[in-house]
């Protein structure tokens, strides 16, 4: 009965079970209770008189809470309806669970209720890569507690399960032998608490503290406040409403406080593999959410600035000024079998850090933070020239120094085969992908504004602008594929063009590095049937050597990618094209009940009629959750201008009337209104393909 998985989460603690609430994890599947990249419960099975239960229904009450309605009976035919079982579970610092059994009969009933518990303490990396453990397990019965533990040298992790009164505890679980009166009810409360033993107060902290009964009202209040603080959306299209609400709730769920950053919470990347800080993901998500929840950006800037690289460390691919790629807390990181403490192998987060700082100030007017982070922003700008130009040609390129466990592709398309030429050949290293140059250009331009207006350093501003202008000139010459009229995906180690056509050209529009004269050709490519599927822009164009509509970065459609492409189209004045992309992605969201997955298949919309979810994609995922937000603000043409918010809507027809009320910013709160007028069917070029013969 491994049907639909039920996931509840809070920050980086999450529980994934089957629809009965049971957990029965094998090494390589990501079910169980996880916190800080470690599985703290891999077995959690409820039986009554030795029999498993059947699920009637499941309620996801809140993102952090679920309720399972169950009945006894082993067969699929006979269900004993004389008893109902309700399991209610809330995640917190671990989780708490209440089990209630209702006797519908007119006679009393004796039952033996048992919860079997066990844990493999797997590091998520081990789950992902199917690796074996190196330490020792132990179990201990401690009063009314069952303690499961794991130890390797000084490394210890424990799960303590506290049972209610009347429990018999053994090393494999907890049993209650109870008599339930006629028409009566019995219930018990269990608490599962995780700990990283020996770390003193450095323990798993969620946004709202411990998983005791107090935590729940706090979490509800926190979510209510989060939703109340966000702008209110009124519109004629009900599914957009649902998508908007879903996005806000999921973003709230994905916020977490890194173990050592008690004061700040920022978005984790995505469930189940990436419930941790990612430099790139946190920055992109904060940019998407700026008009809705600007405090996310402030926290991201704080935390990433505080963890910015300061030294040269080849194992971690760290350099001074570099913004981290990924932080992990599991056993393999602890023993330096993985470099994620943190790992810095990422070439885009550093320029994007400066982009976010500037965009944040434009929206909020928070010059104090910009002054506070001046050192970090300058170090990031310095990294671009001093450490990232591996080929000495004035372009950011990447090549890992940790050749064993470092990342090969240090751009957002980080799978092994994501960067290839038209023939499908994969270039050597270093690689200079095109969007990195766009981000560098944008970082320099924005850095110049901050230097002039806020740091009062006009000389530095001038130098940055001069560098940016030179970069733009070089880029438009070196990356431009003359006969195809687009920008090459990358330059190889010899400076030769890696000439595949990919969605990266959309990010170039966003960065502003594209010469005006070349922008129309890029917009045309983005809306052409080779790239635009009808739902969105594919990561790689049809007809490229490695194109595959279900290839992770070589043909699927990524909602996050599309939200920035739409922003880029707007930046160059292609309003209707941006609206077309927004309409496609928001249409797709309705098929996922408002929760866009990380990626979906790049099949033509007319072929599949619905978007096909990529098999192992993460959901919810922060930057997919942020995509509808950025699409909304892009369609409405929201743009800060001095102390004002400019609204310049260009909306697809099907949206009808739309109002976004109480948009926060340096202007206080303002409203935006619009009406759908763009006929999106006109903006895509029709596919010409021979008619199928019978």
């Amino acid at each position, binding site marked *: 009965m491994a049907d639909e998985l039920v996931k509840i989460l809070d920050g980086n603690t999450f529980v994934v079970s089957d629809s009965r609430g049971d957990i029965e994890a094998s090494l390589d599947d990501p079910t169980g209770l996880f916190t800080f990249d470690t599985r703290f419960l891999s077995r959690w099975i409820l039986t009554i008189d030795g029999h498993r239960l059947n699920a009637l229904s499941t309620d996801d009450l809140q993102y952090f809470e679920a309720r399972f309605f169950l009945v006894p009976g082993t067969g699929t035919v006979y269900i004993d309806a004389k008893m109902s079982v309700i399991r209610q579970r809330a995640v917190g610092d671990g989780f708490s669970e209440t089990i209630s059994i209702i006797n519908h009969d007119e006679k009393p009933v004796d039952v033996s209720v048992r919860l079997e518990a066990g844990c493999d303490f797997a590091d998520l990396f081990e789950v992902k890569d199917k690796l074996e453990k190196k330490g020792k397990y132990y179990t201990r019965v401690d009063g009314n507690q069952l303690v499961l533990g794991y130890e390797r040298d000084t490394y210890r992790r424990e799960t303590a399960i506290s049972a209610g009164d009347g429990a018999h505890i053994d090393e494999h679980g907890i049993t209650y032998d109870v008599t339930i009166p006629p028409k009566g009810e019995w219930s018990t409360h269990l608490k599962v608490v995780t700990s990283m033993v020996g770390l*003193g*107060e*450095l323990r798993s902290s969620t946004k709202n503290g411990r998983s005791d009964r107090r935590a729940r009202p706090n979490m509800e209040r926190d979510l209510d406040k989060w939703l109340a603080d966000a702008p209110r959306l009124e519109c004629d299209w009900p599914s957009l409403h649902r998508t908007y609400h879903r996005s806000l709730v999921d973003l709230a769920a994905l916020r977490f406080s890194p173990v050592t950053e*008690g004061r700040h919470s920022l978005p984790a990347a995505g469930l189940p593999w990436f419930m941790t800080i990612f430099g790139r993901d946190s920055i992109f998500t904060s940019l998407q959410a700026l008009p809705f929840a600007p405090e996310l950006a402030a926290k991201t800037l704080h935390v990433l600035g505080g963890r910015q690289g300061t*030294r040269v*460390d080849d194992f971690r691919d760290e350099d001074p000024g570099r913004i981290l790629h990924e932080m992990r807390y599991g056993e393999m990181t602890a023993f330096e079998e993985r470099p994620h*403490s943190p790992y810095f192998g990422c070439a885009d987060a550093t320029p994007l850090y400066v982009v976010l700082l500037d965009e944040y100030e434009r929206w909020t007017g928070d010059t104090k933070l910009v002054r506070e982070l001046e050192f970090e922003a300058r170090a990031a700008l310095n990294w671009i020239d001093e450490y990232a130009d591996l080929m000495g040609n004035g372009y950011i390129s990447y090549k890992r120094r940790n050749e064993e466990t470092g990342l090969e592709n240090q751009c957002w398309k980080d799978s092994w085969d994501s960067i290839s030429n038209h023939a499908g050949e994969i270039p050597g290293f270093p690689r200079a992908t095109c969007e990195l140059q766009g981000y560098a250009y944008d970082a320099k331009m924005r850095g110049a504004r901050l230097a002039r207006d806020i740091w009062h350093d006009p000389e530095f501003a001038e130098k940055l602008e001069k560098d940016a202008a030179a970069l733009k000139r070089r880029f438009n010459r070196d990356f431009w594929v003359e006969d195809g009229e687009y920008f090459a995906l990358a330059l190889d180690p010899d400076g030769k063009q890696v000439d595949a056509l990919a969605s990266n050209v959309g990010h170039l529009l966003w960065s502003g590095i594209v010469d005006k004269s070349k922008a129309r050709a890029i917009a045309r490519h983005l809306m052409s049937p080779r790239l635009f599927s009808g739902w969105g822009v594919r990561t790689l164009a049809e007809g490229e050597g490695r194109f595959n509509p279900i290839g992770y970065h070589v043909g699927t459609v990524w909602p996050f990618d599309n939200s920035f492409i739409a922003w880029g189209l707007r930046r160059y004045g292609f309003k209707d094209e941006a609206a077309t992309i927004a309409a496609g992605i928001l249409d797709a969201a309705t098929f996922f009940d408002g929760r866009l997955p990380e990626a979906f298949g790049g099949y033509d919309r007319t072929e599949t009629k619905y978007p096909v979810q990529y098999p192992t994609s993460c959901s919810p995922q922060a930057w997919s959750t942020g995509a509808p937000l950025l699409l909304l603000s892009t369609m409405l043409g929201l743009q800060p201008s001095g102390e004002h918010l400019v609204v310049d809507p260009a909306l697809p027809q099907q949206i009808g009337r739309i109002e976004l009320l109480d948009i926060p910013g340096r202007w206080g709160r303002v409203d935006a209104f619009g009406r759908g007028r763009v006929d999106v069917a006109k903006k895509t070029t029709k596919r010409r393909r021979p008619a199928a013969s019978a």
Partner: protein
Amino acid sequence: MNTLERFIGEISAEPQPLLANTSGTLLFEIRDDNETVFALVTVDKGRVGVEEVPAPRDADATIRADRALVDAIAAGRANAMAAVLRGEMGVEGDSELLMDFQRIFPGPDDPR
């Protein structure tokens, strides 16, 4: 003089830009064979100082570890975050302060 104290002594003359937004006290309880040394580090918006104190005292963060590990971290041969996750270095109190502070140490592959 040990590596941690010597390192801090050397940088205490100049304000450290990496710690410009950081203030607080860190008590290092350093075990060395059979004695424990208490080194109290003060960070005040970039100014860093260290003094040996005779007995433990209140600090924003208290850090417990062996001398060999502390010196390896101060010399850039070991990583503080991994040591904390491993349980080889214990932290009580404001662990973020330790994470901020350890950034001033050199890296294993810094040009020397």
